[in-house]
């Protein structure tokens, strides 16, 4: 094999594999869409009783972010008008919050519905190590101030912090850990206790809200930028509302929670709804309001799952094949697998030396077999061949011109396929009806080639060639059955470069084929004798 071929083949394979490796290990893209990779359907029902005035219902909407993707949103309400305010993606997550506001004149009971799908991936953001950079002034001011929910500058907080004997301000990590440990171990979890952080501190016990707010207050009180996050711990059927803190360290928001007991990693199936201290659902001008969340693990179709596999990188997302429409994706998946199947043909023809009708006819036959099922497909090929050859022999007597004769053959084959469809229906074997439309032309060509070879080189040769065509088709057939191959190639089309590289290698191979060894084996013996 010459150097150019080796270099090209190696280069193509390496390029394809490198791109693939970068996307999988570098960007953490999933190789395959997993059925249980955390796709949820979440529903929020808000019921409000009006009092004959203008009223509004405001709810924070979850947004795409690290570890979560929101799609398939759907809003419904019976009389109120909806206004969705998209956040400004240029600004940080907090001020960029999306909200939905329903407004209208309501008198009696009304319902507001918000349904969405969420794909969740585990979020991990471990605490960065020293040295610690000082956050910007604006950030510090925004996230260390005291609010009603987080009374960071209360005297009790300040005194507690003093009594804790915290590590020096340079050891930011140590300070955060010490405060976290204090709230986690010294403030007991008491579901019946109130949500007030100062009360929780005084009683050494608080409910989840109280403890979490206390944690935030103490962190802020010691000068560490902290924000509160509203989230849903998704489970079937009703998710649990929860809160956790995020502390800002070296440019990253690290999730920690005293009430949920995590530090640096959010538990699975946690949906971040809003970075907000207030409640998720707020109402105004109503007599009473109530809301419920429901969540279901969503069984998604293959196509929907595949279209969730968008790469995280914007440039890659722009060229991702998942952007094309779902039917087009389905077609592309088949075509991409077809590329892999051509390797089988290359190898069998150039390394083994099996002759077939047409170059890639076996691959198309294999595809037809996938559509019809193996045995039905083979039966179809054999019967169509038999009927086609019979038809050709009859037509032979009429001495028709070639193209109309081919046309008649095509008609005969179509009628046969139609008959098979009926048979399949009668036998309640729907596989027989499926996907047999496109191989018809291929089968007709097969019949024509077969009958030419039969006339020119004899029936034995024609049968041998038909058998080897089927053999190659059978060898290529399993390629189409590899589970998930189409999905992987759709996500990572650069793997086709590897296929091309292998083609280059096969194409540059000038050694013997297996068939050469058989054909010339006699010459080898003679040369040895002499």
């Amino acid at each position, binding site marked *: 094999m010459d150097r150019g071929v080796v270099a090209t083949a190696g280069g193509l394979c390496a390029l394809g594999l490198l791109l693939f490796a970068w996307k999988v290990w570098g960007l953490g893209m999933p190789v395959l869409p997993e059925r249980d990779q955390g796709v949820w359907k979440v529903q929020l029902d808000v019921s409000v009783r009006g009092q004959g005035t203008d009223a509004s219902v405001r709810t924070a909407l979850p947004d795409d972010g690290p570890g979560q993707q929101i799609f398939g949103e759907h809003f419904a309400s019976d009389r109120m008008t909806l206004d969705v305010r998209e956040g400004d993606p240029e600004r940080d997550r907090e001020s960029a919050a999306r909200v939905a506001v329903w407004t209208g004149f309501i008198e009696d009971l009304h319902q507001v519905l918000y349904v969405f799908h969420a794909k969740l991936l585990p979020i991990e953001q471990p605490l960065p190590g020293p040295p610690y950079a000082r956050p910007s002034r604006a950030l510090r001011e925004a996230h260390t101030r005291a609010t009603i929910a987080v009374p960071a500058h209360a005297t009790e907080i300040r005194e507690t912090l003093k009594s804790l004997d915290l590590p020096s301000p340079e050891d930011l990590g140590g300070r955060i850990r010490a405060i976290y440990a204090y709230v986690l171990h010294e403030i007991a979890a008491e579901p019946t206790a109130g949500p007030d952080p100062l009360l929780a501190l005084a009683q050494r016990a608080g409910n989840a809200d109280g403890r979490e707010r206390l944690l935030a207050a103490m962190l802020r009180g010691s000068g560490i930028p902290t924000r509160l996050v509203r989230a849903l711990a998704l489970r079937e059927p009703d998710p649990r509302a929860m809160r956790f803190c995020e502390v800002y360290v070296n440019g990253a928001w690290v999730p920690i929670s005293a009430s949920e007991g995590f530090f640096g990693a959010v538990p699975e199936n946690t949906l971040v709804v809003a970075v907000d201290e207030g409640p998720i659902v707020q109402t105004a001008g109503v007599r009473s309001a109530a809301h419920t969340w429901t969540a279901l693990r969503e069984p998604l179709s293959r196509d929907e799952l595949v279209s969730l596999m968008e790469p995280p990188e914007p440039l890659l997302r722009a060229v991702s094949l998942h952007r094309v429409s779902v039917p087009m994706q389905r077609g592309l998946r088949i075509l991409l697998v077809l590329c892999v199947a051509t390797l089988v043909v290359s190898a069998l023809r*150039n390394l083994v*030396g099996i002759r077939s009708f047409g170059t890639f006819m076996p691959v198309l036959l294999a595809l037809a077999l996938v559509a019809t099922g193996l045995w039905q497909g083979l039966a179809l090929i054999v019967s169509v061949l038999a009927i086609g050859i019979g038809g050709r022999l009859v037509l032979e007597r009429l*001495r028709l*011109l*070639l*193209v109309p004769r081919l046309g008649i053959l095509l008609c005969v084959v179509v009628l046969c396929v139609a008959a098979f469809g009926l048979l399949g229906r009668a036998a309640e074997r729907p596989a027989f009806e499926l996907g047999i439309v496109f191989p018809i032309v291929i089968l007709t060509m097969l019949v024509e080639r077969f009958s*030419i070879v039969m006339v*020119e*080189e*004899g029936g034995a*040769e024609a049968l041998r060639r038909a058998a080897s065509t089927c053999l190659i088709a059978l060898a290529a057939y399993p390629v189409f059955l590899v589970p998930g191959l189409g999905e992987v190639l759709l996500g990572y089309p650069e793997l086709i470069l590897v296929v091309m590289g292998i083609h280059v290698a096969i*194409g*540059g*191979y*000038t*050694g*013997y*084929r297996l*068939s*050469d*060894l058989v*054909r*010339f*084996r*006699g*010459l*080898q013996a*003679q*040369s*040895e004798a002499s």
Partner: protein
Amino acid sequence: MIARRLRKAGIVGMNHRNRELVQRLNPRRLLPAVDDKIHSKALCLAAGVAAPAQLGVVRAHHELAGLGERLARQRDFVVKPARGAQGNGILVVHGRRGDDFVVSGGRTLAPRDLRHRVSEILSGLYSLGGQEDAALFEERLGVHPDLAELCHDGVPDVRVLVYRGVPVMAMVRLPTHRSRGRANLHQGAIGAGVDLASGRLCAAIWRDRAIERHPDTGAKVLGHELPQFGHAMLQAVRAADCTGLGYIGVDLVIDAQRGPVVLELNARPGLSIQLANAGGLQPRLTRAARVAKPDLPAERRVELGRQLAAAH
């Protein structure tokens, strides 16, 4: 294991032929002229190479109606697809019985059968790639008396492999009863290697077995000397020269009256010639590449081919 011994014997495999010989030495743009028999015949005639006389060409279906009249005075002839491959679609008419045509194997063909056959050729049934084709009518060449005992039916043809203008290997394909008059090894013809130096048959195979005698006539094949073989090589070299191809199979018939006549050129000559010669092609190609100079006169290159073969 086998591969190593084959390499030692200098056997050329299919992949090597396709990539290193056909693709490297036969530029694609030159192939259409060789694949089209009408064109290549014109090339040969222009270069002074003997070729079968052309009786006529049918290019369109409407010409079929007048075919009977055009062939009325012709007792025997051959019909070929202009762009056929591997001898497919060739019909040899030996004589007439009334209006009917007697073809190889003693079968007869009514005029309308012949017209159908020609129409198939025009539709591209036998052509490379199935394109529309033309049918070529040529004189039928006779068997040279020196070769008569070596063939049962049909006409033996001589294949000379010309590599970079030098004849490197040759074989004769002898039709048998089994091949029904056809000179195709797949179909049961005998392939016999020719010693380029002496023009004598040096090895022969029939149906994948080495043989010494003709299975039908019983005549001794090995050692038989081909008539006018040197002249045949010269014709082959000249024919190869006018195509510009570096790896070409020239098929000739040694006619009783006209001597060696170039029948057909093949831009992708097969490898069975190695089987017929019971030896590999590679050593000869290597040596020919070393000595071949395109500006040498054809006679000198035939001489080179002889010397190469003798040295082997």
